[in-house]
C-alpha cells in the first residue's frame, strides 16, 4: 500500500537531529587547563598555615555532624525488639518474627543440648539479634557481645538456619582451648553441625595429591591434609609443583602490585616454578583441607564423646590439637582420623551436577520455538 512521504516539518526535524549528531555542536569538548604560575616553599607554607585553623575547625564540626547523623539514622531505623530466652540463648527479635526465631533456636538447642550440657554458661555474655527483611534495613544494636543473624528474606530459610548455627559456633569457637582455636582458623563456622557431605566434596576435589591419598585411605596423609602433622605449614609439603601452579593460576594476578602480576605471569605463562613459589611465599600456607573439614573433625569428636563433651573439652589440659581431639573422643589419634574419614566418605553425595538440566533446557527451547514456528499466526506477512 502506498504511503505518502512524511510532512515537511518532520523531515526538517530529522535533518536537525542529524546535523546535531554530525557536528556535536551541543556538546563542547573540554578545554585544556593552563598551568598556574610557580610558587615557592615559603609561599606555599604560608598559604597552608593560613588554611590550617579553618581545616581543624571544619574537621571538628564535621565529626560532630557525622555522629549526630549516625545517631539520627539509628533512631529512624530502630524497630521495637523483644528480648527472650531459649535454653541458654538470649535472643532479640522483632515481635512479628519472634515465633520464627524461637522455633529455630528451639531446634538448635534440642540438637546441641546433649553436647553442651554443663557448658551452658558460655552463652551468658552473648545476645543473638535475629531478623530477616526484604530491604536493607538494619537493626541498630551494636556491641561486642551482640551477634547479628541477618539473612535477607529473598534467601531460603535454610540460609537463615545455617547463619544461626554459624553464630552459635562462633561462641563455641571463642571458648575453645587456644591450640584448637588456632587450628580451626578465624573464619566463622557452623561448629557442631553436620556437614559431612560438603567435606566429602572437599576431600574429593581438593587440588592436592595429599588430599587424594587421604581419600584413598592413608591416615598419615589425612593428618597432613588437615594440618595436624608435625611438619611446619609449607606449600611444598602439601602440593606438588603442578598443583602449586594450579593454585597460583586460580588466585589470579591481581591488579595493584606489578611484582605480583609479574610473578603470576612467570608461574602460569612461562611455567617458571621459582615464580610460583615466590608468588605463594607472600601468602600464608593453606592446607588442602581447611576450616570446613577441621570443624567436621572436631564435631565428629564431640559427638563420639556424647553428652557433656564440650564441657569436658573446656576442662582438659591444653595440648597439641591432634592429641586433644584424640583425648576428647577417647580414641588413639590415628583411629579417630580413620573413623572420621569413613564417616565423611559414607556421606558422599550421589548427585551428578549438570548432566540433566542443561540438555533438557536446550531441548525445551528448541521444541518451544519449533512449535511456534509451525503454528499459524494472526500477523501474516504479506
Amino acid at each position: 500500500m502506498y504511503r505518502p512521504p512524511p510532512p515537511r516539518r518532520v523531515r526538517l526535524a530529522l535533518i536537525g537531529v542529524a546535523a546535531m549528531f554530525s557536528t556535536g555542536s551541543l556538546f563542547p569538548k573540554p578545554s585544556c587547563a593552563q598551568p598556574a604560575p610557580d610558587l615557592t616553599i615559603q609561599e606555599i607554607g604560608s598559604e597552608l598555615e593560613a588554611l590550617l585553623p579553618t581545616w581543624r575547625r571544619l574537621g571538628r564540626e564535621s565529626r560532630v555532624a557525622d555522629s549526630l547523623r549516625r545517631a539520627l539514622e539509628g533512631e529512624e531505623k530502630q524497630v521495637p525488639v523483644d528480648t527472650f530466652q531459649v535454653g541458654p540463648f538470649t535472643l532479640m527479635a522483632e515481635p512479628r518474627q519472634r515465633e520464627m526465631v524461637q522455633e529455630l533456636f528451639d531446634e538448635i538447642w534440642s540438637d546441641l543440648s546433649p553436647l553442651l550440657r554443663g557448658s551452658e554458661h558460655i552463652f551468658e555474655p552473648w545476645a543473638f539479634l535475629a531478623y530477616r527483611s526484604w530491604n536493607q534495613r538494619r537493626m541498630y544494636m551494636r556491641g561486642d557481645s551482640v551477634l547479628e543473624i541477618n539473612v535477607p528474606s529473598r534467601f531460603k530459610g535454610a540460609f537463615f538456619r545455617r547463619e544461626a548455627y554459624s553464630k552459635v559456633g562462633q561462641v563455641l569457637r571463642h571458648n575453645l582451648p587456644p591450640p584448637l582455636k588456632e587450628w580451626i582458623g578465624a573464619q566463622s563456622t557452623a561448629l557442631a553441625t553436620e556437614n559431612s557431605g560438603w567435606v566429602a566434596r572437599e576431600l574429593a576435589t581438593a587440588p592436592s595429591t595429599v588430599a587424594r591419598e587421604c581419600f584413598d585411605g592413608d591416615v598419615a596423609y589425612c593428618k597432613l591434609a588437615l594440618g595436624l602433622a608435625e611438619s611446619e605449614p609449607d606449600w611444598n609439603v602439601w602440593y606438588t609443583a603442578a598443583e602449586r601452579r594450579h593454585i597460583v593460576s586460580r588466585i589470579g594476578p591481581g591488579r595493584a602490585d606489578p611484582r605480583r602480576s609479574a610473578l603470576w605471569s612467570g608461574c602460569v605463562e612461562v611455567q617458571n616454578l621459582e615464580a610460583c613459589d615466590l608468588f605463594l611465599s607472600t601468602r600464608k600456607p593453606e592446607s588442602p583441607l581447611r576450616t570446613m573439614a577441621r570443624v567436621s573433625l572436631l564435631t565428629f569428636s564431640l559427638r563420639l564423646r556424647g553428652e557433656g563433651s564440650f564441657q569436658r573439652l573446656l576442662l582438659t589440659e591444653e595440648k597439641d590439637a591432634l592429641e586433644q581431639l584424640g583425648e576428647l573422643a577417647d580414641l588413639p589419634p590415628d583411629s579417630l582420623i580413620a573413623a572420621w574419614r569413613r564417616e565423611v566418605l559414607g556421606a558422599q553425595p550421589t548427585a551428578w551436577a549438570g548432566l540433566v538440566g542443561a540438555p533438557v533446557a536446550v531441548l525445551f527451547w528448541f521444541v518451544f520455538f519449533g512449535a511456534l514456528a509451525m503454528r499459524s499466526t494472526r500477523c501474516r506477512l504479506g
Partner: protein
Amino acid sequence: MSPWLNRWSLTGLGLMVLVALWALPPRSSEDWFPDRNWRVFRYGTATPEFEAVNKEVRDLARTYQRLVWADSIRGLASGAAQAGVSFLAGTPTWAPAGSSAALTEGIRAQLDSEGVREPAVTIGALIIDSDYGRHPGTPSGWSSSKKFESIVSLDDQLPFCVRVGGDPDQHPRIGITVEDFLWAPPGSRQMSNPLGPCLLHAKYGSPGDSIFLWLRAGGYAFAEGSFPRWVEFRVHPRTPVVRGVGFRRVPYLSVDGTACAGGQRGACIRILRLQASSDDLSYLYDLESGGRSWTSPVGYGSGVVGSLRNFGGVEARLLYDLEEEFGEERFGHFWRSELSFEQAFLAAFREPAEQWLLRWAQERWGEVDVSPRVTMEATFLSFLTIGAFVGLALYRRRRTL
C-alpha cells in the same frame, strides 16, 4: 502489517529516538551525574565544606613536602658533583643492612646495560622517610603510598633527576622498599629498573624546556620503563584475548586507547597531548598538584607503572620503543629540542607523533574494532537459526494450503 502492529512499531521507534536524543553521543559518567564520585565509593562522613578544605590542605601539604625534598636533593646532588660521584643511592636508617649497597649495585648494573659510562646529569634513586619534610601542622603519614616519584632539576649549573620512594617507618607495607626498586624476575635475564625515567636523563641529559613541560604534564608516564617480567609484552592481534572477549575489544585499553588502536588519529592526539579521558583525570591532578606547578624546575614524575592506563600500562615503555625504532641520535635530538612536543617529534622522526602512536598501538593490538557491531560468526548463526524457523513455518504453511 496490521494497523495494530504498525501503531506499536511506530510508538516503539519514537521512544527509541527519544532515548537516543537524550543519550547520544556517549558521555562519561561524570557528565550524567556530576556530583557523584564514582572512583571512590564510600559513605561520606565529612561535610562538603570540610572535604573541600581538606583537599586543598592535602595538596598544599604534599606540594610543600616535595619542594623540601627537592631542596634536600639539590644539596645532595651538589655534594655528589663536588665529590665526583655520578649517581646517588640511599636508604633510610631502618632499611635492612646492605640495602644501600644493593641499590648502588642495581643502578650501576642498569647504567652498564644501557652503555652509559658517565651519566649526562646527576641521577639517582633514594628511599626516604615519607614523613621527611612534612609541614609540622599536618598529620603524619599523609604521604605514604606505593608510588615512585621523580624529582627533576633543569638548572644549568646543577641538573639532576632522582627517583624517590617514600618509606613510612610505622607502616612498612605501604611504602617503597629496596625490593621495589630492584625487583627483577628470578632466573630471567631481565634487568631491574631502579632509575625509571631518570635513565633517559642519564643518557640524554636534561630535556628541552618544552619537552620537559610535556613530560611534567604527564609525559613521564611514557618514560617510566617497563616493570621487569619474564616475557616482554607481546599480544598477537588474533589471540583469543583480543578477538574473543568483550565485543573484540582489548579489555584493558581505555576508551581513547581503543579508539587510537582502532585507527582514530584524534584519540592518539588526545593521548599524546595528555588530554586524558575522564578515568585518568585523578592521575593528572596528582601530576599537577592541584593545578599548581612547583618552583621551577621540579617535575613530579609518574607513579606506579600503569597509572595512566590508556594502554593498560604498556605505554610505560613508549619513549624507549621510540628510541629503539629511530636510534639514539634522533631520539636525542627530540629529547633536547626546544620546539613544542609535536613539532619536535616531527622534526626528529619525520613523522607526526599521532601517526607513530597509531602504528605503535596497531603493531601491538592489531586493528581493534571500535564499532559496536556484532561479530560475523554471531550474525551468521543468528541468521541460520532464524532461517531454520522461517523455513519450518513456510513448510507448515505450504502443507496446510
